[in-house]
């Protein structure tokens, strides 16, 4: 299956989904008005990937901002990952002092049955 590579915009994050490496990355800001339009292809991709996943899959998610419309789509994306039987890791990055982003990660961790690793980083560029 084909990899996904999407450049970031002021309203949507950059995305790299690498099939062979089992490595997924979402980075930047996610504040589109229509989040379903943006996330549907990503969720569909994970669905296909889950048919023949790598033994280990890592999702690195590093968001500066996300709106409530994205939050629902991000949950749906995690749910697709949750359905994969092989090993999955989610690394949730947040900027130092950004308690809101840390809490948002903890909220997903409480809902989704995949271990989340909370990683504090210095301010994003």
């Amino acid at each position, binding site marked *: 299956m084909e990899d996904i590579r999407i450049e970031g915009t*002021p*309203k949507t994050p950059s995305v790299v989904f690498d099939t062979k490496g089992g490595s997924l990355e979402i980075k930047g800001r996610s*504040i589109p*008005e*229509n*989040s*379903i339009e943006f996330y549907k292809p990503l969720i569909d991709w994970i669905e296909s990937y889950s048919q023949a996943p790598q033994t280990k899959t890592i999702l690195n998610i590093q968001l*500066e*901002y996300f*709106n*409530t*419309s994205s*939050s*629902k789509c991000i*949950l749906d994306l995690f749910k697709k990952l949750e359905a994969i039987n092989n090993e999955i890791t989610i690394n949730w990055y947040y*900027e130092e*002092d*950004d*308690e*809101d*982003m840390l*809490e948002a990660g903890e*909220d997903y961790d*409480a*809902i989704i049955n995949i271990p989340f690793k909370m990683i504090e980083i210095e*301010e994003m560029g």
Partner: protein
Amino acid sequence: MLNALLEIAEQKLHVIGCETKTRKKAFNILVECLQNLFKHSNEHPNLQEGESTDIIMMLAGDDGIRIATGNTIDKSQMRPLQERLEHLNKQGTEVIRKQYQERLVDGKFSEEGGAGLGFIDIARKSGKQMEYCFSPLDDERLFFTFNVKVS
């Protein structure tokens, strides 16, 4: 237009030089408020194309940043809106957080594409009482003003 507004707001927030935490909260609330306006505003039919009664303001003071919005709504929209805001104003931060999680899991997207999380998120990020007012415009419409603070 939304993009341009957000870009300007972000620049201003940097110029003010407030704490990163406050700046991010303010920007997040601004995004939700703007998207609320675009989804739920119900303009008077006499308005010409391109005209709008929607307003949004961001005010920086010594005690933090205030975000205020105003838009025209149908009378029927008032009760549910008022009930939701009254309810949120009564809850503590932990209860609001729990409601957010529940809504995230159960909530479906509405016709307008909202996840029903907007005001819960605003209440959560602000952590303060939200102020609001409904002023009658005519038999069918009200002007809804909303005001929230971040510090």
